[in-house]
């Protein structure tokens, strides 16, 4: 009866090996994605090298769901550049209140409501005014969305009139339409995200070869 035990034993070891194999494959996929993302960060010098446009404030140039490639070079920021900067949620809530009280620009408001879910919201707007200080690195920057009637001062922190260099995450250099819709849909319906991740994980784990 020795051969039965042998067969069972070898069967077990094969299964175990396969499971390990699948786990390693999964780990490989996850880590290579991370490496690519961080590598892009290094090359472009921007902490998030790709952003998804979430508002319609730059229409018709950029629409919701388009993606932008960012680059953060040493070149100074000049009027006309499309930059991405962060403002915190606190400001946006204040801004929303302000909008409700004054009943202004409802379109802009709805766009922002859609996007108040993350911690920092990257805003993609165009620079319309630049003042470079002499004898120091300071630069005063004013931005505006192409599709908005007014400049962005209303969205900056209370009393803040200018953006400085450190507010800016990157400058848009390239453009790809529609690709970001997946991200927008997933952030609007988080359940979808878990379903997708689960299915992908299962697929990888159960896939042969």
């Amino acid at each position, binding site marked *: 009866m020795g051969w039965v035990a042998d067969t069972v034993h070898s069967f077990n070891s094969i299964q175990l090996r396969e499971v390990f194999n699948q786990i390693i494959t999964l780990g490989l996929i996850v880590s290579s994605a991370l490496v690519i993302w961080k590598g892009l960060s290094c090359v472009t010098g921007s902490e998030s090298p790709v952003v998804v446009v979430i508002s319609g404030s730059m229409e*018709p*140039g*950029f629409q919701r769901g388009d993606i932008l490639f960012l680059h953060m070079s040493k070149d100074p920021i*000049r*009027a*006309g550049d*499309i930059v991405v900067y962060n403002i915190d949620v606190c400001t946006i809530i204040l801004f929303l209140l302000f909008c409700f009280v004054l009943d202004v620009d409802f379109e802009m408001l709805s766009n922002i409501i859609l996007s108040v879910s993350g911690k920092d919201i990257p805003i993609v707007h*165009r620079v*319309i*005014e*630049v*003042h*470079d*200080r*002499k004898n120091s690195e300071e630069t*005063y920057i004013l931005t505006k969305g*192409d599709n908005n009637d007014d*400049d962005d001062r209303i969205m900056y922190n209370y009393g803040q009139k200018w953006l400085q260099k450190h507010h800016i995450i990157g400058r*848009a*250099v*390239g*453009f*790809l*339409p529609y690709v970001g819709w997946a991200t927008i849909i997933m952030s609007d319906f988080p359940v979808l995200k878990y379903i997708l991740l689960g299915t992908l994980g299962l*697929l990888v784990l159960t896939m042969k*070869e």
Partner: protein
Amino acid sequence: MHSLGYRANALLTFAVTILALMCCMASLSDNFNSPSPSAQVQVLNINWFQKQPNANDEISMTLNISADLQSLFTWNTKQVFVFLAAEYETPKHSLNQISLWDGIIPSKEHAKFWIHTSNKYRFIDQGSNLRGKEYNLTIHWHVMPKTGKMFADKIVMPGFRLPEEYR
């Protein structure tokens, strides 16, 4: 090996690769276009010129802008964003750029235009250095592609001067 999932995956990968390649080629094809745009700007009138209560100079002017940007358009061009900026140097600032007017050109047919306008955005200095100031007017354009790399360039028109006195 030849299951439905495997084939679907192969097909999807192939389709995405081809699409990405076509996007790259469309973007690269923009490099073959060598545009020769032209633009003229005239300052017709200084409407008013004053010092704000917080000591910053502000000026309002009437401009006449004409430009022919038709050669910027290629088959991969979604729109051209064009703006006019005043650029000058002051003792405190090495460069001041203030956008005075901008516009979006959606198609080649609209790329040859002529406009008579007062400044759309406020021309305010950070300080009171505008009296008798020499400045450049610069037409900038940013070409937004249907996909790929964005292009930008400008035409600088030097030798404008603001009035010596507030009015």
